[in-house]
């Protein structure tokens, strides 16, 4: 396990692109962890509270300054603090959705490629059904039935996100399935599920990792879109996409209110893209 981690880290730092990407991602990650810790420990790590009482609030609509690097919003809340507090949600949803997609996809696709035949057909047609579900529609349906909010939206995204990973895993698994060491594994008495987890998945994980890293940014973007539509976390909980949405009207007078959260989202996506591209180049994967 330790070797895997070292391998993965060395993969990620091999070229300039991915180092930049990794730095950005790590910055977000550390922030997310700190914010979660602060919530759990009931300690405030941000310069100002994210949801201050009217008495604690600063003057409204202050432009960026030394005291408030990102300015304040229409309720006098420090924008920087709100952005920081939103990090765990907006950032982690990327990991949660892609993580589950990778797992589901790897198991279904890996098994399909390994076994072939009817099972392959069945699994792939099952995947096709989910492929056909439009993300937005499912999100809205889930929003209507279960209500909005980050957990429900995560669920909606997880339902629709895994099919492309299953396809990818199947393609990679087909290549692995013909290798002699798979046959040798059968000769060692292993059955397909065991072969899937011991041999197939470790050997397809490289390509899937690349795909996943590039994808996390996309999830963040999509979730921001959902929040923009009103399906995400409701105020007063801070949320990047929601901030962009609600401060749309202030674009001409106090542009920083909508721009800065938007830039933060972009930054997150760029970070993952760079990291993913870097790993892709290192591994020589198309």
């Amino acid at each position: 396990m330790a070797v895997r981690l070292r391998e993965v880290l060395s993969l990620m730092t091999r070229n300039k692109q991915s180092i930049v990407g990794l730095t950005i991602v790590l910055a977000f990650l550390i922030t997310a962890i700190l914010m979660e810790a602060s919530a759990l420990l009931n300690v405030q790590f941000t310069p100002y509270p994210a949801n201050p009482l009217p008495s604690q609030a600063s003057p409204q609509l202050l432009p960026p300054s030394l005291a408030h690097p990102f300015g304040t919003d229409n309720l006098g809340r420090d924008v920087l603090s709100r952005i920081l507090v939103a990090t765990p949600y907006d950032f982690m949803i990327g990991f949660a959705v892609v993580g589950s997609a990778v797992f589901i996809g790897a198991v279904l696709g890996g098994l399909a490629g390994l076994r072939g035949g009817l099972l392959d057909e069945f699994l792939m047609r099952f995947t096709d059904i989910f492929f056909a579900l439009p993300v937005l529609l499912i999100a809205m349906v889930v929003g209507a039935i279960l209500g909005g909010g980050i957990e429900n939206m995560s669920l909606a995204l997880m339902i629709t996100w895994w099919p492309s990973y299953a396809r990818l895993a199947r393609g990679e698994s087909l290549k692995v399935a013909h290798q002699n060491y798979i046959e040798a594994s059968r000769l060692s008495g292993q059955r397909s599920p065991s072969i899937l987890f011991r041999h197939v998945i470790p050997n397809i994980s490289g390509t899937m990792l690349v795909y996943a890293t590039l994808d996390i940014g996309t999830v963040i973007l999509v979730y921001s879109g959902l929040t923009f539509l009103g399906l995400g976390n409701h105020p007063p909980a801070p949320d990047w996409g929601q901030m962009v949405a609600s401060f749309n009207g202030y674009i001409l007078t106090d542009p920083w209110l909508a721009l800065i959260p938007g830039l933060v989202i972009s930054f997150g996506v760029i970070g993952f893209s760079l990291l993913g591209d870097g790993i892709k180049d290192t591994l020589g994967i198309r």
Partner: protein
Amino acid sequence: MASEPLMRTVELRKYYTSTRGVNPLSRAKEKVVKAVDGVSINIPEGRTLAVVGESGCGKTTLARTMALLIPPTGGEIYFDGRRVDGRGVSDREVYRKLQMVFQDPDSSLDPRMRVKETIAEPLRGLTGMNGSEVKAAAMESLQAVGLSADFADRYPKQLSGGQKQRVAIARAISTKPKLLILDEPTSALDASVQAQILNLLVDLQRRYSLSYMLITHNIAVAAYLSDVMAVMYAGTVVERGPTSEILRKPRHPYTLALLESAPKPDPLNRTLLETEISGEVPSAINPPPGCKFNPRCPFAESICTEQVPPLTLVAEGHDAACHFLGKTA
């Protein structure tokens, strides 16, 4: 040989049908590829049987069918006194005594597993040994193939072709099997490395009383390693017998051509330039009628296109499938 062979097949068949696709109305005829078409061979205990042939003769399919990796279409397989084809046979029990080494050393080892984990896999899957027993047995196996203990922690990409093949052999013998099926074990290796592996195989056979089934297209390797030989052509055995006998006096016209064509390092004996063989191995989907060798056979007559010749005894323990054995006597 009076004693019971360790493994034998009786009229073993493996046919592949090319499917017509999903369309039930499709009028495409189902084509049948008879990869293995009635093969009966014996592997004597403690000895080596070489199955020799060119591409498409079915030797690889035969090996995998006998290793129970592919279900046979017909015929019987007996191993260590019991019938092992068909259901009801636990393949785990068979694999404790039967293992396989493959041709391509690069794809024989999982690139993400260390050498010691690779060698331990059959031990973990087939025996009830606990962790430390497995470790000890794996190390023993590693040293038996001539690799020092510090190879145990390496990954395949740190090994040369010959070393990878040794690890594959170590994995195969880790459960102390009785039979090893070797599928072209040295074809992908350089001459010097091949010699090392051949020496190793001879040594292991002696030390552990192993039986080998050697699949190869290389006559020289077959001659060196085997005691008995079976020559295959287009899915059937055309000649069987003691290796020395077949080399000295081949009786089937194909065996003759094969031995002539095999290059020997002897510039004064250029049999290769004298061989009259023409044509290519037949298509598996549309084989010639009767004896499958008839289009290329210098002795072929009309009966050869009508009847498949049966294996006929030509000497003690030596038979060949030809209508005109008199021509090669």
